């Protein structure tokens, strides 16, 4: 479904991505980990059109993504969230979701008033558990609720591929747990790529993990395989091989 070949990105001589090869098959929940500066976010930026690769190809569902504009890539069915969640604070939760869901409408069709709640919006509300807050402005939401709203906005767009950049960063333990359940539920009918630092979260919810290091793919495999791989422990954790993976980088 998503395929990156020899992707290179350089910022002022610094190689953020140095020949990344990555294939994510349809329906998979893939976790992307790596120390700071490994290129995780850059990789998402490349897929979503925010950053142009210097070389290599990015293909999604048979289409070349390189050179397309951000909103065009979204229209192909690729959605993303950001590390710092951006919801529209002056709009209500429902309006945020409705705006996300209406993106395929032509501009003139948007000049009509919203009537009620569409099916996609209602489904997103239910999935993210934000029904009770539907009519409140998004500005009053807590950090965790904002992240869920963002994920809900993605879901309302019915994308084929979701790219989530550190969805549980800064969340409380309960919120992490709920987010993990939400991700597992979403992964049942979507292809999802999650960038995450949190090892504890990873072991609870991840199946397949790709480890990035210095702009390259270091290892790929199940959580168990990856967490005992000596190379991973060396670069990612800076620990001895017999120590278990247990803390955030």
């Amino acid at each position, binding site marked *: 479904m998503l395929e990156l070949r020899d992707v290179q990105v350089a910022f002022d001589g610094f190689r953020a991505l140095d020949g990344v090869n990555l294939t994510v098959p349809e329906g998979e929940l893939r976790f992307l980990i790596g120390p700071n500066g490994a290129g995780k976010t850059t990789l998402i930026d490349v897929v979503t059109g925010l950053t142009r690769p210097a070389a290599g190809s990015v293909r999604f569902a048979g289409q070349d993504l390189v050179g397309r504009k951000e909103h065009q890539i979204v229209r192909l069915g690729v959605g993303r969230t*950001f590390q710092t969640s951006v919801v529209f604070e002056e709009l209500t939760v429902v309006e945020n979701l409705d705006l996300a869901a*209406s993106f395929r*409408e032509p501009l003139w069709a*948007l000049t009509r008033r919203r009537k009620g709640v569409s099916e996609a919006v209602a489904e997103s509300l239910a999935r993210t558990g934000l029904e009770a807050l539907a009519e409140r402005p998004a500005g009053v939401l807590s950090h965790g609720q904002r992240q869920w709203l963002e994920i809900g906005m993605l879901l309302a767009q019915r994308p084929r591929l979701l790219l989530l950049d550190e969805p549980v960063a800064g969340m409380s333990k309960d919120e992490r747990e709920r987010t993990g359940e939400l991700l597992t539920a979403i992964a049942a009918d979507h292809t999802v790529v999650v960038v995450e630092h949190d090892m504890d979260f990873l072991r609870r919810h991840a199946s397949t993990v790709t480890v990035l290091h210095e702009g390259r793919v270091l290892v790929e495999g199940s959580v168990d395989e990856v967490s005992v791989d000596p190379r991973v422990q060396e670069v990612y954790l800076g620990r001895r091989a017999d120590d278990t993976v247990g803390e955030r980088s």
Partner: protein
Amino acid sequence: MIKRHLPFATVAVIALVAAPLLLEPFRLGLLAKYLCYAIVALGIGLAWGKGGMLTLGQGVFFGLGGYSMAMYLKLTEAEGGLPDFMVWSGVEELPALWVPFANPVFALSMAVLGPVVLAVVLGTLVFRQRVRGAYFAILTQALAAAMVILLVGQQGLTGGTNGMTNFFELFGQDLAEDSTQRGLYLVVAGVLGVLYLATRQLVNSRYGRLLVAVRDGEDRVRFLGYDPALVKTVTFAASAGMAGLAGALFVPVVGIISPALLGVVPSLELVVAVAVGGRHVLAGAVLGAVVMGYAKTAFSEQFADGWLYLQGALFIVVMTLASKGIAGVAQTVAGRLRSARAT
């Protein structure tokens, strides 16, 4: 439903029935002038208040509308000859640019389409390059300055610094007659009312939500699959069209159009008026233009030079103490009253 439209209906009755009956012709003419400015302010409220595009060059669009109308008026009076100022400038043949403006339909269409096309071209170039915020504001202000230089420099084509004045009739009606001026007033008030309702409808639609979203998180909107540049261009063009129409109405009401009426300073004054009235609310923008118009006249009648200082002071006071303007203060008071009544 009725309750929601009550404020608008009240204002409409006062503006359309009470004002023409109660105000003497001179004062009614002044109000008509302020309402023309209010139409521009409505556009600024849409583009800046809702869309976050601080446009300091609405005078350019206002001027395009005004000059289109003035050209038509001059040509009907010249009755096939040359307009007076061209004769004084030694122009011997009617410039080709002027010829189609003898047609009132063309002139009126150009008053709106000219600004719209200019805004679309400018918006497409600027918003695609992701120019925004202060850079966009400076760019529009530079445009206003350039427009004045262009108009002043083309004496034979535009009347130069003096602009165009001495208009006597519009569609066969004597512009000096009180009844004509009252009719013009009603047209201006009607146009403002219709545009206000249409803009309010737009703001309350999904498009309005999208516009606010673009204002508050343009990059995020891009990742929702919308093209912010398109949304901004369309909105900017709508505000430009309103300013153009306002300019076209202004000319027969006030009887003059000149570079001094559309340069940097008048453009800024309108933005200040919108800020004072409250840019986040459309009615605030409209109110701001009318209130500042009246204040300017009242103060200039008393102390000729004092107005500029007062206007500056008022702007500072509003920005520091009540950044949401008169409308914001009104909302706060209404909210307090409601909660006081509830307890």
